[in-house]
């Protein structure tokens, strides 16, 4: 019963469900002997799933992920991070220079530059959705690394960007950038990250995959109830922060890490349910931009047999 699997993760709060499931023994309960593999970026993690070096992971939907699915290497099996009305989600930022020059609302972004890591990244998607909704033109600047984008924002070399709250809030707090809107307004029910695995695991290792999702869902439930619904009160939050701090911001002292961890709180899809309408929307956008092949269908990307398919 004790199957050894590898789960890929980034050191972000959005991966907390995996950390919780491991720390609280949910994986072990499901008969899974889990080893976490940490990555510096999402893209190599996706490739590692394709090559079979890692079994399960969570990441945003990107052009690379869709391409790998198209090559028959990976499948999306469930949802994770999700935008939800009422909870602080991803923020739209303006650089101080642009803000002072009057950029105080996303509607005024016409002709401005918008920072993305790479074309075909989730930042690119969010930016285009804003542009489409507002009927404006945005210039996208690919800067590869989040650090480079922060540098460019602070020095006013790009005008706007969108990013998760735990990075957005401290930046805005320092006065170097300003929050001018939220992504929720433009992309409701945005399924930001998804759980995925290799096509092999999805088709041939059904029970293992189901077990993974079960344990993963328990992690999600704990996280949501403690951090969002405050079921355990502040003591519960403290305990959870302690747990997450083992994996995130490890080289900062606890008291400095805690605000960042709490700031980063966003709803994870309960039961790892997947919002397929959002996924379809993203897929169509990638296709319309010519970043991935026209012929890819939702079925190529998603294995719908594991979790609830919202909006199908």
């Amino acid at each position, binding site marked *: 019963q004790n199957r050894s699997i590898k789960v890929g993760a980034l050191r972000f709060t959005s991966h907390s469900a995996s950390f919780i499931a491991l720390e609280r023994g949910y994986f072990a309960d499901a008969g899974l002997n889990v080893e976490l593999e940490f990555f510096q970026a999402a*893209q190599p993690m*996706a*490739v590692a799933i*394709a*090559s079979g070096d890692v079994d399960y992971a969570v990441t945003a939907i*990107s*052009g*690379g992920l869709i*391409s*790998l699915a198209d*090559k028959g*290497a990976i499948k999306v099996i469930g949802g994770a991070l999700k935008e939800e009305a009422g909870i602080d989600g991803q923020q739209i930022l303006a650089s101080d220079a642009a803000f002072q020059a009057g950029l105080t609302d996303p509607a005024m972004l016409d002709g401005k530059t918008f920072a993305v890591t*790479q*074309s*075909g*990244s989730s930042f690119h998607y969010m930016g285009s959705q804003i542009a489409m909704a507002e009927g404006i033109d945005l210039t996208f*600047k*690919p*800067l*590869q*690394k989040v*650090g*480079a984008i*922060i*540098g*460019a924002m*602070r*020095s006013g*070399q*790009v005008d706007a960007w969108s990013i998760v709250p735990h990075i957005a809030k401290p930046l805005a707090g320092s006065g170097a950038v300003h929050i001018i809107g939220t992504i929720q307004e433009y992309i409701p029910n945005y399924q930001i990250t998804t759980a995925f695995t290799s096509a092999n695991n999805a088709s041939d290792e059904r029970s293992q995959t189901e077990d993974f999702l079960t344990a993963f869902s328990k992690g999600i439930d704990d996280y949501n109830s403690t951090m969002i619904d405050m079921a355990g009160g502040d003591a519960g939050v403290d305990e959870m922060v302690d747990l997450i701090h083992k994996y995130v911001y490890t080289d900062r002292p606890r008291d400095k890490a805690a605000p960042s961890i709490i700031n980063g709180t966003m709803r994870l899809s309960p039961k790892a349910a997947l919002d397929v309408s959002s996924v379809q929307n993203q897929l169509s956008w990638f296709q319309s931009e010519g*970043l*991935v092949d026209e012929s890819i269908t939702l079925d190529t990307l998603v294995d719908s047999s594991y979790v609830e398919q919202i909006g199908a």
Partner: protein
Amino acid sequence: MSDISAVSPGLRPVTYRGGGFVPSPRRWVGFMVFVLLILLAEWGTRTGWISQLTLPKPSDVLVTFQSLYDSGLLFKHLGPSLGRLFMGALIGVSAGVSVGVLIGLFTYIRSGMVPLVAAIFPIPKIALLPLFVIWFGIGEGSKYALIAFGTFTPTVVATYGAVDNVDRTLIRMGQSFGLTWFSIVRKIVLPGAMPGILSGLRISLAIAIILLVAAEMLGAEYGIGAYILEAGSLYDLDRLFAGVVILSVLGVLVSASIGLVENRLLKWRV
């Protein structure tokens, strides 16, 4: 006196034991190796023996290349890249040669700069990407700066090595004829260091090409590096390899043109 050999007893030819240790290149072999490797890759990917995750089909890469050319995108990407390569390398190489010559000539500059250059050399340029954004912006400036920075250190090292190797007797000769310091530098030191500087240039320019990708991480829309990065992030192996082949060809061309310059400029060499 071949008759002696017929007559004398015990007469036998001296055994040959020389030869070897002088490999002479044969052009067609190199060509054949490329063709063979490509055919092997084609065969492997076609039969599925090499998975399509591992390597793209060479014929697909060719098709991609063809469409890149037909759509005119090739030159849209190549243009900015060549510009960056040229400007970046120009800045880096000229700064490198100047500093290298100064290091080669002056005790204090040498003492101050050599350890500095040694400390700068192993710093990975990609680690400093966020800083380049602040220092030089996200326009062409930072791209030039990154390539210049990368070519600077190897050029300095090659140049001061070359200056050190200039035959001191030639310099003493210049002094013994009462040539001015400036004359000696211009007419003896610089031409004498030229072979070393040019061969250093081979390495510097290869590094410049390598850094093109890093440079175009910084907000480049067009450029071979940007093209490769996008292909990589989309895991589009056909385009990735098309881009890599372009860089590779670029590298071989640059090296060949340095060879030409060497042949022209250094025909005085023995």
